[in-house]
């Protein structure tokens, strides 16, 4: 990938230049690769960072294994169940004050220790 060599620039300037770099890079790819990148870009994906939540990760993996289902569909199902519950019960009992300036609250996940926030 053509990395943006500029550092210390505003996020918006970096976003514009980075976007154009990626477009340029794609233009130079063979057609099959370019189509693959386009298909991937259309997919709606979320990457979950399990750092600090290893216990949770293990349980999700175990569950997917036990139910003979893919990890993505297992996570999607759990997300749906969690969403239903939050919409029904609200998040307030799960929140505690955060130190972050950006977010007033952290959501605490019970049963995964101190890291579960």
């Amino acid at each position, binding site marked *: 990938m053509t990395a943006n060599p*500029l550092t*210390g620039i*505003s*996020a*918006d300037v970096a976003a*514009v*230049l980075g*976007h*154009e770099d990626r477009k340029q890079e794609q233009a130079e790819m063979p057609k099959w690769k370019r189509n693959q990148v386009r298909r991937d*870009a259309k997919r709606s994906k979320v990457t979950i960072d399990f750092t600090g939540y290893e216990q949770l990760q293990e349980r999700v993996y175990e569950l997917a294994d036990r139910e003979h289902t893919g990890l993505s569909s297992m996570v999607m199902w759990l997300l749906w169940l969690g969403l239903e519950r939050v919409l029904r019960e609200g998040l307030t009992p799960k929140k505690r004050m955060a130190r972050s300036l950006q977010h007033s609250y952290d959501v605490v996940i019970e049963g995964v220790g101190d890291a579960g926030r």
Partner: protein
Amino acid sequence: MKKQVAVCAFVNQKGGVGKTTSSVTVAHLWAMEGRRVLIIDLDAQGNVADCLGLEKTGDLNRLLIGEVGRAAIRESGRDGLSVVLGDKTTARTRQILSGDPFGVYKLREVLEGLAGGFDAVVLDVAPGADILQLAALVACTSFVIPVSLEHLALVGVREALESVASLKRVDAFRGGFAGVLPTMLDRRIKGNLERLRMLAETFGRQVAPPIPTDATVGKAQASGKTLVEFDARCPALVGVELNGNGKRTGGYEVAARWLAGEVGL
């Protein structure tokens, strides 16, 4: 301790780079965030009045030749935003100040008596390297250089910085360089992106979030409304979506917040 008023000058020797649009839009956005803002039109074309749908007046001339004081300040009809307007009489002011050995200090002197009660003063400076531009640089606490990415406006950046350097040599400049504000960014034009990259390589973090090119700007000016009043969702204000993920990049809203931080508001 008395809080220093942030006096921010929009300068570039080159015309048509978006100085007036930028100064009026940023001033209006700052005022909408609850600040008391005064915008002063230092251009004989008096385009600040046009952008705000007001009648041009010779208030700047009368203020700088000492005919009036605070009476030169008018309400713009927008909460928190006041104006000192100019018209062709500004050209006469330029002549008078040029003949005064201390003319370059006149605006600073006038602002010291006038700026109290405001959080920020925005100076819309005419193109060219004349006495009013130097007076604006002497009076400001920081300056920003709007740069059109459409053509050779980068030359204007160098010239503005040279003016500052010459004022520094005689100890007349007390301000800081807030940064460059790239305007009229058209991502379809390769040269635009090359110039943006060049600015980023030269000025690093002092390049403001870029303003995308947008036909709304001309329409808003023609109607005498600010961009916020004309179309609060236009790309020049809210930026453009790059990746189809809903996240917008650039635009005056983020640029005004960025600039507020740079000028200490």
